[in-house]
Structure formats: structure tokens, C-alpha cells
């Protein structure tokens, strides 16, 4: 049983930030939670999926973040406390409904968790800082710095959200989501799971009311500013010196440790209630200093605000921040030590830069992330490359495990923008160049935002070849079910929606469903369809190999293994070079398949020009 659910009041448990967020919601009497999976927020969903039934709450994986937000909004408008969560890019998708939600207001507490990912550990497309969205959406924002705060801030957010009838944003960053620290638990509260939608003119978001509600929204924020001023989520830790530090989020931890290592104890204002910012508290803090250092990851948002406040209260104050610290990349203690050393003149006894230089000389081989053994995407990429050899072709990329096609030997992701963008951009390229385009996107991405751009290619007479890499699951984020899986977040059987039927209904005339393990059929079909003057679609359909392996293990079914016959093998290396399969390796010129790793997909056996690879005979 999950300790997030079983932990008793007063008990201290070690929780992941993401688990603590769920506990905070359970202690607040939540009735509904919704999401579209995205790391670093994924484990919030995994935790809900694990406990929802037992906790008596409703949880779903929605088709995308905008839908998820709308689902949670429906609950909150009907008087049921709800939570919606996604990664930073998910907020971009959800915004269109988020802004009017702020105007409409909610009848029960609603909390939206936004997980930013500085350093792009799980998100390559941009180092987005979502904090400006609080300002645009007119919504309050809290930023916890450890797992205890994750739980406590969520609880506080529900209380205030309900009081002010306004959804609350709780913004985390990867190191908060994926930090384990000790959490003292409170009591779980059984909340409402059924409410009633009571019609309210405020929900209608129509002029002229919208002007009135906009006005009211600002009044709410003014009142929330007063709450922020007095909130214990913002606090000053006493210290000495003419330099003060203002810090938000996870960086608080780095600042505290860096000061300890430099043997200094400067006054620190830690801000957890980051929108609206507590102006009076900040002004009081900064008036006694000559210099303050603002420490916040990514953009200088608090820094610029402090600069503005300094003009009113301490115009000689030097506000330091970016310049000593970067707007790019995540922070760590090393970066804070470096900034504090430069500003205070105190030296850390150990030369970190020289130390790192010694390491950089080692140059050990990189371990790039790689498609799993037996991954059906491997053979799709191989076939696409083989079929288009020598052609002037653009490989349109998208977001999912197949992002790994960016690496050698495939290099089949010429651009990666956002969910579903392979088709939209691919179509634009087709319209303005003479180059062929193949778009690669997954099943979950298709349901998320791949449908409108596909319709657009039919509507506007375009002709990219679209390959839907349908592995029956949302694999990259940890195997969450999607509308094609036939199961929902609660593990219940549900309608398995046919991608094939959808694509045909859109008016695509050439639709082929192919098992990607059938390499020759994939190659010949791609060759045929890429030349068509109308849009065509291949659904490369095969379940994620990790799932198949798990099922086989549970049912005690043996996997066929393959081996290379050293007497037939001409040591050309095609298998290894073209497929980059983790199971294949070379030992002093001899190519071998590691039976512990081989998934039995037989793709290498089809690719081998000398027919040297075959299934191992049963003993």
C-alpha cells in the first residue's frame, strides 16, 4: 500500500516532492484530479493512479492538458475540490481555458501544479519559465522548495483558493518534484466527490460582465497581496552583513548550504508566495542594505520587481542577480558559491573550477539515451531511412520516445517543436519547398494534438507522409494509458479508440496499418506512399516492447532469442551500425547478441545482408 495514503497524522515519512503534492491534496479533501502526463510532473499521476480508488476520489489521464484543465474546472465550478497538473509546456496548451477560468472563479478549491524543468532534464524544446503566466492569467502562485513545503503549500492553496474563489497555481521545478525529503504528515480529510453546478452569471464570460469580472479579479489580487505580506510562506532568516539575499524555490537550499560552506550568515528573505509578491515585506527587508542579491532560477522576474521597489524605498540599493548568476540552466550550490564569493570576497577553501577541469580531461565515452531493445520505433526509423536513401527529404519530428531518433544512426528528427508540430510544420515545408516530408508522431501525441494538423493537410491539399508510431501507450512518461489503450487511469476497461478509423474519417485515402517489425513491407510502403500527391498515413502498430516483456514475464512466456552465426557472418557490422540495438555488440571483430538483452524482435535478422542471424533453437 502506498504510504502517501496510509501515513498517519504526525508521522514522518520520506516523500518525493510529487508524492507530497498528492498527500497535500488528500489532506485538503480533494474529489477529482486530472492530467496529461509530462515529466517532471509524471509521478503525481502515478501516485493518484495507485491510490485513487482506495482514497475514493476520481482521477483521469485526459487527452491533453487543456482538456485536463477543463475537467478539473468542471469539478471546481460544481463545488468539488480539484487538482490539475502538468509540465510547463502543458500550461501553454491549457492557457486558452485557464484565462477565462480566472474570470469565472471557482466554487471549490482548485489547485494547478505546473512543473518547470530548468536544464531541460526531461524536456528539450525550451527552458520555459512559467511564472509570467501568473501575471497574465491573474492567478496567485506559490513556489515550494522541498517536499514538506509541497504538501503544506498545496494545503494552504486549497484553503485560499476556496476563500477567494480563485484557482491557485503551485509552481515547482524538477529538483523539487524529484527531491525526496522528510515530510511530517497531517490528517487525510474525506472531501466531497459529488457537488452541484449552480448557475452563476460570472461563469458566462461575456461582455459587458467580463469588464466587471476583470475589475473584481484585480480586487481579489489586491487582497491576496495583503495575505502574501503576512503569509508564513514568506519569511526572513536573521543574519549579519550589508548584503541581503532574496531567494525563491529550490535555490533557498543552495543559498543556505553555500553560506555554511563560506562561513557567512547573511540575512535571507525566502519568498514562497511569489504572486502577488509581498511588496511591503520586500521593502522592509531591502531598506537596510547597500546590496541585495536576488537568487531565482531562469528569468529575472523577482529581481526586476525588487529593482522597481528599491526606487521607492532605497534608491541607492544595488540589486544584484543575473550577471552573477545566469538566466539559463538550473542552479546548484556550486553556482551560488561562485556568485557569493565574487560579491562578498569570501573564498571557498576548495578550488571547484580546477577540480572540475581535472575531470573534464578524462573524456569517458558518453552514454546517450537509446531506444530499448525490441523497440518498434527502431525498425520504423530504419525502414524510413532505407526507403528514402538518396532522396531530398525532411524528417519531421515530434514529442515522445521517438525523440531519440535524433541520435545516430537514425537522425530522423530534423526539428522538434511541440506535441503534434511534425504535421503542421511538415505541411508548411511541403507547401514552400520541393522536398518530400515524412512526419513521425506517436499514438498519444496523435490524440493529444495530432488531429487538427492532420485534418489541415487534407483540407489544404497537402501531401506529407505521416507515420503514426502506435505503441498502444504513452511510453516516454512511464506507460500511462491513452484513448487507444483500452484501459483508463483507474485500470478500468474502456473503449479502445481506433486511430485507423479516425484517420479514414478525416478523408485520408491512403491508410496502411503495418507491423513495424515487418521491415520489407515498411520499406516498400514508405517508398510507395512518399511519392503520392495526396496525404497518406502509415500506422506502424505494435505494443511497446517494455510492456510486452512485462506481460510475458508475468505469464511465464519465454521470449525467442536471436544469435549471429559466426561462420556465416561476414563482419560487415550492418546490424550494429544501422540499428544501434543495445543487445548487439562487437568483441574483437566478432559480432554477438547478448541473450539477456535480446527482445526477439527479429529485425536484425531481416537487416543482415548475409542472413547470418537466426533464432536460437530451443534446447
Amino acid at each position, binding site marked *: 500500500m502506498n504510504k502517501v495514503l496510509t501515513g498517519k497524522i504526525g508521522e*514522518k515519512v*520520506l516523500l518525493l516532492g510529487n508524492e507530497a503534492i498528492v498527500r497535500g491534496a488528500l489532506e485538503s479533501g480533494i474529489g477529482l484530479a486530472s492530467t496529461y502526463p509530462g*515529466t*517532471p510532473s*509524471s*509521478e503525481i499521476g502515478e501516485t493518484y493512479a495507485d491510490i485513487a480508488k482506495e482514497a475514493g476520489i476520481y482521477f483521469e489521464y485526459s487527452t491533453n492538458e487543456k482538456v485536463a484543465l477543463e475537467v478539473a474546472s468542471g469539478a471546481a465550478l460544481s463545488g468539488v475540490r480539484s487538482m490539475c497538473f502538468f509540465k510547463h509546456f502543458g500550461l501553454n496548451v491549457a492557457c486558452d481555458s485557464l484565462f477565462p477560468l480566472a474570470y469565472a472563479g471557482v466554487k471549490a478549491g482548485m489547485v494547478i501544479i505546473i512543473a518547470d524543468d530548468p536544464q531541460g*532534464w*526531461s524536456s*528539450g524544446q525550451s527552458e520555459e519559465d512559467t511564472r509570467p503566466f501568473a501575471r497574465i492569467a491573474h492567478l496567485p502562485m506559490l513556489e515550494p522548495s*522541498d517536499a514538506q513545503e509541497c504538501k503544506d503549500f498545496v494545503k494552504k492553496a486549497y484553503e485560499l483558493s476556496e476563500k477567494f474563489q480563485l484557482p491557485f497555481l503551485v509552481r515547482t521545478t*524538477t*529538483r523539487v518534484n*524529484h*527531491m*525526496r*525529503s*522528510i515530510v511530517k504528515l497531517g490528517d487525510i480529510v474525506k472531501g466531497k466527490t459529488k457537488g452541484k453546478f449552480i448557475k452563476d452569471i460570472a461563469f458566462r464570460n461575456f461582455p459587458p460582465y467580463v469588464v466587471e469580472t476583470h475589475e473584481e479579479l484585480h480586487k481579489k489580487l489586491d487582497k491576496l497581496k495583503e495575505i502574501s505580506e503576512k503569509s508564513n510562506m514568506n519569511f526572513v532568516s536573521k543574519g549579519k552583513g550589508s548584503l541581503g539575499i532574496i531567494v525563491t524555490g529550490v535555490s*533557498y*537550499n*543552495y543559498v*543556505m*548550504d553555500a553560506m555554511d*560552506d563560506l562561513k557567512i550568515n547573511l540575512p535571507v528573505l525566502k519568498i514562497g508566495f511569489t504572486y502577488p509578491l509581498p511588496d511591503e515585506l520586500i521593502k522592509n527587508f531591502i531598506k537596510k542594505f547597500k546590496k541585495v542579491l536576488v537568487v531565482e532560477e531562469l528569468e529575472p522576474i523577482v529581481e526586476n520587481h525588487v529593482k522597481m521597489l528599491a526606487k521607492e524605498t532605497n534608491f541607492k540599493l544595488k540589486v544584484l542577480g543575473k550577471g552573477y548568476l545566469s538566466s539559463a540552466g538550473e542552479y*546548484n*550550490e*556550486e553556482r551560488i*558559491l561562485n556568485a557569493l564569493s565574487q560579491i562578498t570576497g569570501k573564498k571557498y577553501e*576548495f578550488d*571547484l573550477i580546477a*577540480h*572540475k577541469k*581535472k*575531470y573534464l580531461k*578524462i573524456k*569517458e*565515452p*558518453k*552514454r*546517450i*539515451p*537509446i*531506444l*530499448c531493445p525490441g523497440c518498434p520505433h527502431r525498425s520504423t526509423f530504419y525502414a524510413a531511412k532505407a526507403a528514402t536513401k538518396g532522396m531530398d527529404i525532411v524528417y519531421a519530428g515530434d514529442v515522445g*520516445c521517438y*525523440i*531519440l531518433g535524433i541520435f*545516430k*544512426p537514425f537522425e530522423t528528427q530534423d526539428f522538434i517543436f511541440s506535441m503534434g508540430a511534425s504535421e503542421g510544420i511538415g505541411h508548411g515545408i511541403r507547401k514552400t519547398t520541393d522536398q518530400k516530408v515524412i512526419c513521425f508522431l506517436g499514438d498519444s501525441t496523435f490524440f493529444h494534438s495530432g488531429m487538427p494538423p492532420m485534418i489541415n493537410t487534407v483540407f489544404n491539399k497537402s501531401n506529407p507522409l505521416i507515420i503514426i508510431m502506435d505503441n498502444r501507450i504513452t511510453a*516516454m*512518461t*512511464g506507460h500511462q494509458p491513452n484513448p487507444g489503450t483500452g484501459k483508463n487511469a483507474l485500470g478500468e476497461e474502456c473503449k479502445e479508440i481506433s486511430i485507423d478509423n479516425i484517420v479514414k474519417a478525416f478523408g485520408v485515402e491512403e491508410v496502411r496499418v503495418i507491423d513495424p517489425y515487418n521491415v520489407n513491407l515498411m520499406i516498400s510502403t514508405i517508398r510507395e506512399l512518399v511519392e503520392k500527391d495526396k496525404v497518406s498515413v502509415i500506422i506502424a502498430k505494435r505494443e511497446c516492447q517494455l510492456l510486452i516483456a512485462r506481460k510475458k514475464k508475468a505469464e511465464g512466456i519465454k521470449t525467442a532469442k536471436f544469435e549471429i552465426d559466426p561462420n556465416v557472418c561476414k563482419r560487415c557490422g550492418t546490424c*550494429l*551500425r544501422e540499428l*544501434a540495438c*543495445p543487445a*548487439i*555488440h*562487437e568483441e574483437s571483430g566478432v559480432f554477438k547478441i547478448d541473450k539477456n538483452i535480446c527482445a526477439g524482435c527479429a529485425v536484425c535478422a531481416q537487416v543482415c545482408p548475409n542472413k547470418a542471424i537466426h533464432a536460437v533453437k530451443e534446447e
Partner: protein
Amino acid sequence: MKEFNIIVAGVGGQGALTLATIIAEAAMKEGYDVRTTELHGLAQRGGSIPIHIRFGEKMYTPLVLEGEADLIIALEPLEALRTTYFGSKNHKTIFLIDNYKIPPITVSAFGEKYPTNDEIISHIKPFSNKTIIIDASKIVEKETGSILSSNIFILGYALSKGLIPIKEKFILEAIKENVPEKYFELNKKVFDLGKKQS
């Protein structure tokens, strides 16, 4: 004890995360404040998985400061190399490495060279007081038919050599809570094997 810093490094699927969770929970049982950090998602697909564990009186940062690791446990030799800069002679860092090589694709397909054990030891030397390479996976595979519990073997070894300042009973409690019930006896056996390893 003010603080103790451990890094557990491995490749996705080796059980690095379970090992780290066991150590962290045992440290909590011992009465320490604990912080750890790990990464999920993209990096897990056959990528490197370094996990930081810090425990002591009062902890803030979950990340180990470069040069300040007390112990680096690597379930794969290359992964030890990748984390060398978290160790230092200054800090008397000990490297404990399972001699179980998983060549990355850059080696197996694209011509880069996997360093020999001698090269690995000489690379680590400037960052460490002591490097221990043991055949954990090989021994565990021989004894149990699978390498799966080699992480627990290493834990038993580290504990018996006094490399982790936590009492055995707390470690055993944490193992019990973090491995499936039906595999506890097997893991206990492997743990004891690790303890006996010289």
C-alpha cells in the same frame, strides 16, 4: 555527524534507485535528516542515472557538492568515471564499483573505447582515497542465477566494511520495505553474501 554524502550511479534498470531509496530510508530510521535527488524521464532510456543522497543533522541541498562525496557506489564502471568530480582526495572519497560493464552504444557501435580497469582506477585516483572494484554481479549471478539483486550485495559489502554510517538493523528494515515480500529472503541471503565478501 554533520553530514554524509553518497552518490549511487548506474544505468537504467540496474536497481540504482531502489538501492538509493533503501539507504535514504534507513538513514531516516537512524534519526538523520535526509535529502535525495534523482532524475526521471528521458535519461532513463538506457541512460546514466546518478542519484544523490545526503543525510545528517539538518539538510538543505539534495545535490552533493562537487568534491564532497564520502562514498560513490557505481553499479557500472563507466558510471563511476562520470561521477568522479563529486569525489576528492580532500574529502577522502571512497569509490565502490561493481565490475559489471555495460558498454554504451557509443562504444558498441560508434568506435569509442571502453577504458580498462587500470585506466579507470588511474582516472579516479586524483579524486579518491580508495577505489574498490568487486565482482558483485558475477558473484550474485553465480549464486542466484540472476544479477538482479547485485545492488543489495554491494550494500551488504559497503555496510560490513563500515562505508555507510547506518546500523544494519535499519538497513534491513528498509530492504524489507522496498523489495517485494516474496523476494525478501533472497535479498537477505545476497545481503549476507555481500557482508562476507572480503
